[in-house]
């Protein structure tokens, strides 16, 4: 177990170090996420005022789009000098490599969410600080579900043709349960009379999804990555 964590931590630190040199993925992902929110906000404006109840949806859509972008960019980096193969060459536990990559993506998405949530709150008068614990839990569980599947798919597509378009094609249908639960749960929190119980139900569903798919991803990472 400790070897697993050690390797995962190594990978995370390496990814962090690489990212800190240029902040390329973080800045482009953040910018893109903000742009998506703005585009949707302008799209849904009616008589100069944003439509009611779209805040939750726009937040999660922006996260899904920018998450896909971040995943693609992160693994494109590993393609550059074929370093993903170097990782596979090492005697390290393969699922640990996956876990490390996943942790890196989660950190990145957490930063994006830290920017988007206040932004959405501001632009749509959404009560983001009403139940911050619930909202944070929903975001955490939803992001984990999305990233768990996304990291696996992005990794397995690294050597495939048409990988740029195939990642969203594969990822979006697979993570619709996450989107539904995330949006509906967040919407329940943003309602004038927040429905905490409903949000909790969707949170539970998300946690269950996470448990199933993280396990599945850890289990299938090695066979999918070896040729």
């Amino acid at each position, binding site marked *: 177990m400790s070897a697993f964590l050690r390797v995962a931590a*190594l990978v995370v630190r*390496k990814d962090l170090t*690489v990212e800190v040199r240029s902040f390329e993925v973080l800045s482009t992902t953040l910018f893109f996420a903000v742009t998506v929110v703005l585009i949707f906000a302008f799209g849904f404006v009616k008589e100069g005022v944003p439509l009611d109840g779209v805040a939750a949806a726009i937040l999660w859509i922006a996260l899904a789009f920018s998450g896909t972008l971040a995943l693609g960019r992160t693994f494109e980096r590993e393609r550059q*000098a074929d370093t993903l193969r170097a*990782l596979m*060459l090492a005697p*390290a536990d393969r699922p640990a490599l996956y876990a490390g990559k996943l942790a890196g993506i989660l950190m990145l998405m957490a930063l994006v969410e830290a920017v988007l949530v206040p932004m959405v709150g501001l632009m749509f008068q959404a009560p983001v600080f009403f139940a911050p614990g619930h909202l944070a839990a929903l975001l955490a569980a939803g992001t984990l579900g999305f990233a768990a599947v996304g990291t696996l798919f992005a990794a397995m597509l690294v050597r495939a043709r048409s990988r740029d378009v195939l990642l969203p094609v594969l990822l979006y249908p697979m993570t619709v349960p996450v989107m539904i639960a995330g949006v509906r749960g967040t919407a329940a929190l943003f309602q004038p009379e927040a429905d905490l119980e409903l949000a909790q139900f969707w949170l539970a569903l998300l946690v269950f999804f996470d448990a199933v798919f993280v396990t599945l991803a850890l289990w299938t990472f090695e066979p999918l990555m070896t040729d």
Partner: protein
Amino acid sequence: MSGDFDHVSVVQLGRHYGRRRALTDISFTARAGAIVGLLGSNGAGKSTLLSILGTLLVASTGHVKYGGVTVTEGGPGLRSRIGMLGHDLFLYPELTARENLVFFGRLYGLDGVEGRVATALDHAGLAARGDDPVSSYSRGMRQRVALERALLHGPRLLLLDEPFTGLDQASAAALVGRLRHEQARGVITILATHDLDVVDGLLSEVVFLHGGRRATAATTAGTLRDRYREAMQSA
């Protein structure tokens, strides 16, 4: 299982992608201290063979045995005895040479990583520039770091894919020197190249590849280039 081995046997190895044959019926054995050259033009199957030897690809037919142990039996312990220098060098350009080496050293679970890395940088003659990002290096410098990365964990089997590409004479000579040094330590080196003149005299054995198959030259005399030409003609 982290068993060491003293020879590598390739037995009737084949690899295909759908209808395309990349390798057919390749067999040879390499012992400790051997430097085996895989010679052939592009598309002959050299990289595929190296990938299989490095456990990155699975053979379609035949097998490879590392001192009598197959890949599945060997597991992660086997990978710790193999070092590979890929065509794309396997280095993170944003990290410094030192950071690259330390990362891979820790990934391989080595002790005293810092010390080993310092020695490695000395070997590569890059101690002074060890803290510059690899992206600022020339091809030759990157090659040297990549080689040290492959050797950091003291592997028994060293696999090199086109290591002389883009190297000037001095760097090529330095690489040859390093390979001889490893040879003396009993490392099995298998290198793929089409720089025949550089490796003439370095190789202890030669495997000529043409269209995924092994080609043989009747004579063992003459320059490597002559033998290569003969092998390709008879293929």
